[in-house]
């Protein structure tokens, strides 16, 4: 199990570091638009994604970066996409952005329309079944999406067409500023049952709990061609989106300077080498930030605490991923800066 734990931890840390990086880039004005982070959902997603095989498909929502990173999509291409870089190297040539990430190669699609992951996954599963493969499709979306018509219809559709779909409901308890318990009649596992779909509710902050359950669930879906509903409790440590004004009082928000912005958004200025140097500083502060998050609701922290015997290995993973992400950032900024000059 140790190797598995370390692998899962690695997936989670990679996603976490990557998202923390996007957060800084966003604050620096290098990522346009709203930015919805999956920080706090990593355990749930790692537990699922680690059990996927080639040809499995994913449909996700406005908070899909962890899935893309963990599934192995080129992180630099994701970063460039989120930065709106209009070029070949960006995942979607700069046309999609962070709410509309698509990878044909990995059969991954997203949508900013609440609930659209569900019909999306149903269609992927239909294709997989029609082609007589063993593949499945996974839908990732928030608990709020289970009140949206096309999502509810999709539960019934997958159930009656007997399709291999895993519906993952990432329940953080909130939809933007709405407390979901006030807006959800009944409970969601029971709701899935009402469409003839079996389901379970798990602690999505505990990656092993999810992983172990999924190890049984996914093979069953592959074999029986029947949908399954996985309800996981997660947190959104950053609010609905970055510097969610509802979570952060206005005046405390100005703490981040415009460091990278200055060096990269200004077309003329210091040479690229100098620009990239500032990156190291930023990443180190990310590391710092992450370590401060020792709340018992942090899936990374929970894993470390449960496996104190692996403390050293965890630290090594941190260091490796730190280096990896730093390289990705450097490469990305090189492409980005090179083009924007």
């Amino acid at each position: 199990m140790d190797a598995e734990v370390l692998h899962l931890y690695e997936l989670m840390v990679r996603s976490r570091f990557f998202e923390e990086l996007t957060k800084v880039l966003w604050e620096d004005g290098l990522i346009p638009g709203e930015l919805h982070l999956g920080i706090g959902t990593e355990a749930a997603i790692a537990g699922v994604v680690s059990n996927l095989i080639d040809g499995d498909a994913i449909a996700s929502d406005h908070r899909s970066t962890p899935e893309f990173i963990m599934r192995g999509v080129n992180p630099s291409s994701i970063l460039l996409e989120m930065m709106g870089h209009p070029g070949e190297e960006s995942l979607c040539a700069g046309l999609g952005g962070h709410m509309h990430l698509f990878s044909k190669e990995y059969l991954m699609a997203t949508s900013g329309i609440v609930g659209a992951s569900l019909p999306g996954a149903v269609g992927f599963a239909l294709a997989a079944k029609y082609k007589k493969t063993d593949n499945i499709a996974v839908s990732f979306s928030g608990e709020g999406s289970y009140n949206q018509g096309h999502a509810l219809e999709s539960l019934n559709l997958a159930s009656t067409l007997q399709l291999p779909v895993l519906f993952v409901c990432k329940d953080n308890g909130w939809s933007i500023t709405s407390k979901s318990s006030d807006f959800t009649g009944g409970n969601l596992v029971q709701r899935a049952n009402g469409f003839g779909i079996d389901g379970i509710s798990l602690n999505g902050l505990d990656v092993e709990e999810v992983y172990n359950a999924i190890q049984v669930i996914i093979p069953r879906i592959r074999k029986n061609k029947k949908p399954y509903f996985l309800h996981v409790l997660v947190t959104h440590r950053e609010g609905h989106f970055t510097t969610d004004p509802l979570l952060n009082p206005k005046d405390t928000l100005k703490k981040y300077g415009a460091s990278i912005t200055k060096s990269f958004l200004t077309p003329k200025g210091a040479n690229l080498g100098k620009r990239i140097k500032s990156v190291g500083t930023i990443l180190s502060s990310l590391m710092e930030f992450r370590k401060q998050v020792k709340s018992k609701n942090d899936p990374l922290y929970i894993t470390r605490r449960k496996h104190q015997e692996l403390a050293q290995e965890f630290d090594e993973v941190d260091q490796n991923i730190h280096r990896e992400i730093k390289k990705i950032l450097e490469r990305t900024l090189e492409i980005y800066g090179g083009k924007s000059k």
Partner: protein
Amino acid sequence: MKRMNFDEAIENAIIQAMLEDDRIIIMGEDVHTNRSALVARFSDRIFPTPISEASFLGAGITAAMAGLKPIVELWMIDFICVAFDAIVNHATKVYDFSGKRWGVPLVIRAPCGGGLGDGGQHEQILYGSIASIPGIKILLPSNPADAGGLMLAALQEKHPVIFLEHKLLSEQLLYYLGGSGRNTVKFDVPENGIEGEVPDHWVPLEIGKLKVLKEGTDLTMVSAGVAVHRCMDAAIELEKQNISAEILDLRTIVPLDIDNIAASVQKTGKILIVDEDYKQFGLSGEIAASLLERKLNFTYQRIGTETTIPFSPQLEVKTLPSVEKIVSMSQFLFYGSH
């Protein structure tokens, strides 16, 4: 050359395509019944669905992205409204969002149009609303040969296509929706639309090319679907009055064949658009704008549906484009008065 009914031609072209391309599947409510001939032949490629347009159209999109070619059927185009998001925010957007790397080869097939006395929620055409969204093609054939050829073309597209099938042209729909159990009502069915010559082997028609149904010198009439036949009938009337109408059958609403509309208008100097869809913010406007952009000089009128289509047949007939209206509006265009 042989002859076929309109709906037969479509089914025939689909069969030809399905035999050649096993990625084609059919989804929709009651398709096990409405396409029973296809079920007999391609059983597990026909997927009947619950009454859940939003989800099965949404699923059709990702099924297409994953390598299939779904024909997603709606009972009527009016019901696209419960699945409109799948069109506006998904089917038409994926190709762009993906950096033009991932296409959605999806055909949406839906009966449309009025004249059956079914009322305002079941007789619309609605292409005016859909056509505004970039990234989807819309076809509306007026006869069996075009219907088959365009269906085949749609099934070879890499991007989403809406294939509209006018109820007054389809024997099957007239029989089923029109009330097969009675011979006490008559519908104004265009003879040359419901049945006609078709090729022995289907060849895809070019999408976005209109057909000149009748040459003329005095006035260009642009139309599609059943309205084309109303124009043809009106033209006979107009000939008697020495007005020679050129009649263009668009066949494709998006993309519009503006080149050929412009060529005709340049010749006649006058255009009358006859549109069964809502008049406002639709086809007739787009044609006007496109011709003006080309700096053409011409006089212009249009006929379209201006209100909710009334249930009462007496009122319905006054609301939809009719031969009388076309004749009258042509005279107006010609003489400046009716």
